[in-house]
């Protein structure tokens, strides 16, 4: 009888579980950057803004990239979802609640206690001066952090889903639109002293772009650039949105272009499994998201009527209505709840329950679109991976196991259900 003592190869230890040395280093840099951020809130770096910038935004960004890059080492194919359900931070453990509270607190301070950020804004000052020739404000700081988050976690997405060209292309797309359209282009516009304009946001996500106050000013400005902005926003809302949605479904926007989608698809990816898949959640979703759409539609119509009557209908109520919407929907819903609750309810809370743009696109997708997710005969084994990893809380399996196509208003076409399916049952298709 021969006895063989087998040893586990040493390189395996770090290959599948546990953190690689570089990942630890990167996370330590992010943690240090966050700490310096908070320390700076009291004004410790008031006279050293370049140092503050380097030790927060630069250090944190570098740390982020160092933490996510080692994921490219694993040369085997496939998506690794191992251990997600055992992870506290990803599965509603203590760490997830702390992260959720921290995100929520950040948004509350950002929206309602900006004076607390007086010194923190300084961290973005050198960048703001360089890009915009203008002092930083809280929204520039927020935009910077947002963009960094999308880029760093976008690279993580690229690593995790690198075997699917669909995910690679669409992740590069959201990274491009966030960096180019949401960050660099508006900064250039500010530097040129013209209107800060976001070419990838339309009514009703940016309702004021279709308000008479904005449109009149743009179209009557006589400035070629501003007139273009006016026509652009009308054309995108009225023509491009329905046409693109007819051919490709709402995904052309929600998981390829939109900034909220960009954050959800990158920073939010580790929490996608926390969306609620119950029938009750679906009922709540339909009521809520369509109510928001109705609300902003009524506000828009009233504002237009009021303007056409020279203010005879609403008087000063116009701005009140607008600010009520801005407070509850723009700030509380899309910011505090939408992003603050990422770790607990998944990354698409705003997109699913609150976004009027998603509601519009959803109606178009459900009734006037060639997009659907098709199911492959009877190959479904009802395992539940598709439903579990649907960030929109769609019970994909309920359709897949019946062999039915999935035409749901909320589907943003991220394609993760199809990727995690172990039996090749699901495919996103644009077909007649």
């Amino acid at each position, binding site marked *: 009888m021969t006895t*063989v003592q087998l040893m586990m190869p040493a390189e395996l230890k770090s290959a599948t579980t546990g953190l690689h040395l570089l990942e630890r280093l990167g996370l330590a840099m992010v943690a240090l950057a966050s700490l310096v951020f908070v320390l700076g809130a009291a004004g410790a770096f008031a006279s050293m803004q370049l140092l503050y910038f380097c030790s927060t935004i630069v250090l944190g960004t570098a740390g982020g990239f160092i933490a996510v890059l080692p994921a490219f080492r694993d040369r*085997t194919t496939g998506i690794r*979802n191992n*251990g997600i359900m055992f992870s506290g931070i990803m599965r509603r453990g203590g760490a997830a609640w702390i992260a959720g509270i921290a995100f929520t607190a950040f948004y509350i301070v950002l929206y309602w206690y900006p004076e607390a950020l007086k010194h923190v804004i300084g961290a973005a000052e050198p960048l703001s001066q360089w890009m915009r020739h203008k002092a930083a404000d809280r929204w520039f700081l927020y935009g910077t952090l947002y963009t960094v988050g999308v880029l760093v976690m976008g690279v993580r997405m690229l690593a995790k889903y690198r075997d699917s060209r669909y995910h690679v292309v669409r992740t590069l797309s959201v990274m491009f639109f966030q960096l180019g359209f949401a960050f660099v282009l508006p900064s250039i516009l500010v530097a040129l002293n013209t209107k800060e304009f976001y070419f990838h946001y339309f009514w009703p996500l940016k309702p004021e772009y279709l308000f008479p106050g904005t449109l009149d000013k743009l179209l009557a400005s006589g400035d070629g650039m501003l007139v273009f902005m006016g026509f652009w926003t009308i054309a995108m809302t009225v023509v491009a949105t329905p046409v693109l949605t007819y051919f490709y479904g709402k995904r052309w926007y929600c998981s390829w272009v939109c900034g909220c989608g960009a954050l959800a698809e990158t920073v939010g990816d580790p929490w996608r499994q926390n969306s609620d898949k119950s029938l009750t959640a679906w009922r709540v979703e339909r009521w809520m998201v369509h109510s928001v759409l109705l609300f902003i539609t009524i506000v828009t119509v009233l504002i237009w009527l009021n303007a056409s009557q020279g203010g005879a209908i609403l008087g000063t109520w116009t701005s009140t209505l607008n600010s009520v919407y801005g407070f509850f929907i723009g700030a509380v819903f899309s910011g505090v709840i939408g992003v603050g609750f990422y770790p607990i309810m998944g990354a698409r809370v705003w997109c699913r329950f609150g976004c009027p743009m998603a509601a519009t696109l959803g109606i178009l997708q459900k009734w006037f679109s060639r997009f659907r997710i098709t199911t492959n*005969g009877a190959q479904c084994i009802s395992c539940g991976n598709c*439903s579990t990893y649907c960030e929109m809380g769609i019970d994909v399996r309920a359709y897949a196991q019946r062999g039915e196509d999935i035409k749901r208003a909320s589907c943003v076409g991220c394609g993760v259900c199809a990727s995690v399916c172990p039996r090749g049952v699901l495919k996103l298709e644009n077909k007649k």
Partner: protein
Amino acid sequence: MARIVIIGNGVAGITAARNIRKRSEHSITVISGESDHFYSRPALMYIFMGHMEYAHTKPYEDWFWKKNRIDVIRDHALHVDTKAKTISLASGDVCHYDSVVFATGAKTNFYSWPGQDLEGVQGFTNLNDLELLEQNVRGVRRAIVVGGGLIGIEVAEMLRSRDIATTMLVRETSYWNNVLPAEESAMVNAHLAEHHVDVRYSTQLAEIVANDSSDTDIVSSDTSHTEIVVGNGQRACAVVTNSGERIECQLVVLTAGVRPRIDLAQSSGIATQRGILVDEYFATSVPDVFAIGDCAERPNGRVDLLWYTARAHGETLAATLCGERTAYRPGVFFNSAKFFDIEYQTYGVVPSAIEVMHEVTKVVTPTDSNGMQSLTWSRPDKRRFLRIVHSNNRVVGFNAMGVRLRAEVCTKWINEAASLDYVVKHIALAQFDAEFTERLRVA
């Protein structure tokens, strides 16, 4: 309105229940000793790997059963009295029926290996096994998986996800090559190596050694366990293979196939062989007693041990029980699996002994095997492979590895006996891969 009682809440039993409800107002009761509600058995591995929690594996929310008036009872059926038409349960309750359906599934094969009753030795087919495995893996440095089939490779993947060094004992000369042709099998072999699974081909288990090696007579000749028998405190510490090699380990998972669970049917006087004998309507030897899924043995002697066939059995029997007498006529065969990261789909007839007539890149001398030949396409760097099997240039089957095929198209081509030329030319129609995936070009 008839009282229909289904024993077993796996996919066969539950599919029957759901379809009976769709078609009728019969009273439906489902008895299971395993779980309160239906869950997806193939998803057990994902719970262990942390992809999902148990709740995620339940295809229907818990309110579904009450809403659809399907009574689910958590109990063990002990005996079926086919004369009085009653079922006695472990709780002491007695259940009356007009028709009873055995959907009792299958269980792990224990081949009377010395040491198979030791602690740290188990099978992997149900929730109990999953819980047991969670206990058994604690502190394990090396595990042995006995058997080179679909469950074996899944268990290997599960163990590797926890960084447990894993050795597979495979009876065949190459992975699952009694089913997979040589090229597909070789792909899986290579992939197993990439995942650092130590596979011993042409190797069988001879003995499992207890940690106290002086006491070696823990040999059980009982081969019909219904539950994992917990040993007498002695734990497995090594296995010995048929070549005499001894491999130290702390866990042994037996995955050398499953067999129909027929104990209840046998003791209730229903005719059985390998499985419960049924006709093409799933009727057993006793009136008003039916059997479907893994536990049933069909008139051709086949026991279908697949998720898809179990579901098809359930649908077919539901029609019969609701007055539309329907014989089981399975269509074009299909199956699918996943070997670590490589998805596998098969349609129609793909003999394991088939030879390649020509590869797309190089033409090999045609060789005939049982009148069937095949054409293969592969991208080894991408772990993608496709085989089209034909007989006299008429397509009869497909094997796909790392390529997703459209079931509807493949089935249609096989049914129509489409010509090889046509299929090769239109192969893109059969592709079901995600957008932006490289298109198949077999010609």
